[in-house]
């Protein structure tokens, strides 16, 4: 009986290394992903990744959906910062359809996107803390992520998978409570972030754990398709917001922080600095939004009746609004044919949408360029020769989101 059940692979008795399955449901992987580590003592000899545990075939589903029904799919890519995905998707559609958004919409979008970036970086950095044994930071910043989620809630009604905004703008104007909460965030957050940095940045234990863990050179990072904070930590100042500005980012002044070694510590620092820069952008955008006067002060969407749902009371009383409402909801609007690639700076890298339209009502092909799917390949190279405990911390500092990886 024992012979039947215990089947050792050929040569495994002589094997000097240990195979360890890290994941798919290990709490330290922070997502459903599996790593088959080959260990020599505590040193990692090789790592093989298995992904796809939450693959939901979004690219296939999107081929049968009208544009507005694809927005909820993008929520579920990087669910730590879904507003950025939503905006990226709307911007892609607007590029294809030739919709021009008013400045106020652009600024409101920037506020939301930068808030999302902060909440994403907060989670990532505090999880790096958790994985190196410092739980306090994580608990401490949670309430400010909560505040960000409350702001989303005021704007669109939901918190995690936001489905925020529409093609051409927002579904409704920001209300006063939303502005108050943004103001509250701007007032209180700097002190919190300073405290968070005090907890970690010069913390001896944290530095020992992260400096030199999972480093990558700029050249290798580029070859591996790194983008976002991970690439910038390796010393390349590539940021989509600067290189191909979208949503009026060109109106704002901000710096791109870069690191040198590309290790966990640099990635941590780059993310922290980016939060400061995001804060700066939000402040500016908030200021600019307040400055709109007269009719401009209430604009929250572009005038595109073909793609933007009319107000509900008009649907009940006006013929034209009813027609547009019906056509949009039934997905009976034909798009112009064409191919468009549009990228936004997601919280963990360049989030691209490659959209092929054949003139029909749904995308002929929609491909998401998901940043962490591409850079997770480098994991083996990052961890080879490192200790097992480094494997965990490298994984969390790369900001891997299973939902985005598996699409």
């Amino acid at each position, binding site marked *: 009986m024992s012979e039947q059940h215990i089947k050792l692979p050929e040569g495994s008795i002589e094997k000097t290394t240990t195979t360890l399955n890290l994941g798919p449901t290990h709490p330290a992987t922070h997502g459903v992903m599996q790593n088959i580590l080959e260990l020599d003592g505590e040193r990692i000899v090789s790592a093989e990744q298995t992904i796809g545990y939450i693959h939901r075939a979004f*690219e296939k589903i999107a081929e049968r959906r009208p544009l507005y029904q694809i927005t909820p799919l993008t929520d579920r890519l990087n669910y730590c910062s879904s507003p950025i995905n939503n905006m990226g998707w709307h911007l892609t559609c607007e590029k294809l359809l030739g919709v021009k958004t008013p400045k106020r919409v652009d600024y409101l979008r920037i506020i939301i996107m930068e808030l999302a970036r902060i909440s994403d970086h907060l989670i990532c950095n505090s999880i790096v803390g958790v994985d190196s044994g410092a739980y306090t930071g994580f608990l401490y910043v949670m309430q400010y992520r909560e505040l960000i989620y409350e702001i989303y809630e005021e704007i669109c009604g939901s918190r995690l998978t936001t489905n925020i905004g529409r093609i051409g703008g927002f579904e409704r104007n920001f209300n006063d409570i939303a502005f108050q909460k943004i103001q509250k965030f701007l007032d209180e957050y700097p002190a919190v972030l300073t405290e968070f940095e005090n907890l970690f940045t010069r913390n001896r234990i944290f530095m020992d754990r992260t400096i030199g863990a999972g480093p990558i050179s700029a050249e290798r990072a580029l070859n591996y398709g790194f983008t976002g904070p991970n690439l910038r930590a390796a010393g390349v100042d590539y940021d989509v917001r600067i290189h191909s500005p979208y949503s009026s980012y060109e109106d704002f002044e901000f710096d791109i922080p870069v690191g040198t070694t590309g290790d966990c510590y640099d990635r941590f620092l780059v993310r922290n600095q980016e939060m400061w820069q995001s804060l700066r952008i939000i402040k500016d955008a908030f200021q600019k939004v307040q400055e709109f006067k007269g009719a401009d002060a209430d604009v929250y969407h572009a005038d595109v009746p073909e793609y933007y749902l009319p107000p509900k009371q008009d649907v009940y009383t006006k013929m034209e609004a009813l027609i547009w409402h019906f056509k949009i909801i039934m997905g009976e609007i034909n798009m112009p044919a064409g191919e468009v*690639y549009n990228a936004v700076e997601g919280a963990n890298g360049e989030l691209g949408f490659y959209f092929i339209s054949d003139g029909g009502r749904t995308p002929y092909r929609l491909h998401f360029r998901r940043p962490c799917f591409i850079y997770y390949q480098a994991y083996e190279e990052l961890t080879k020769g490192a200790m097992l405990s480094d494997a965990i911390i490298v994984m969390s500092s790369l900001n891997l989101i299973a939902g985005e990886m598996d699409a």
Partner: protein
Amino acid sequence: MSLTNEHIKQRLIEKFNDQVLGFEESYGMLSFEAPKELNLKVLNFLYDDEELKFRFLTDLCGVHYQGQQDKELAVVYHLHNLEDNIRIRFKVFTAMDKPDIYTATGLFSSANWMERETYDFYGINFVGHPNLKRILNVDEMDYFPLRKQYPLEDQSRVDKDDEMFGRGGTIGFGTEKTDHGTIIEAEKKNVGEDII
């Protein structure tokens, strides 16, 4: 900073003559195609050339153009020159019955998983790939789900046959103009079997 789409086009034509074709500029991005045998040569040229320096592979994905004779499957490369900040799109086409294309993993480490994903979805065989197996779907899957012959919904369903909305028996959105929704009766059976 001076690199323009026009210049890139000239350089490519100088080097590959009439083998690179289909130049077009859609939404500001230069797009072109080449025979599939040349894909590595073109990528190498774009990478090594002192002026062009397209050294960042942004994206690699497959597309199924249903009904294009001998050019049904495409692999699309999005390349980025980070110094001059310019992007291009490069396509190679292959026939459905022999979808072999040389791998770009030698040039870009990032192509590894993206090619695996493309294989997983479209069954494009990347010749020379170090580890070409499915990545998102289960290994046991015996079809390539993003090909257009696999409809998203079961076409035989009658409860969703909403004639009254003017869609004349086709199901779901977008099926009027394209023919991905219509499936030949004989194939329908096979599709079902494949999925089960």
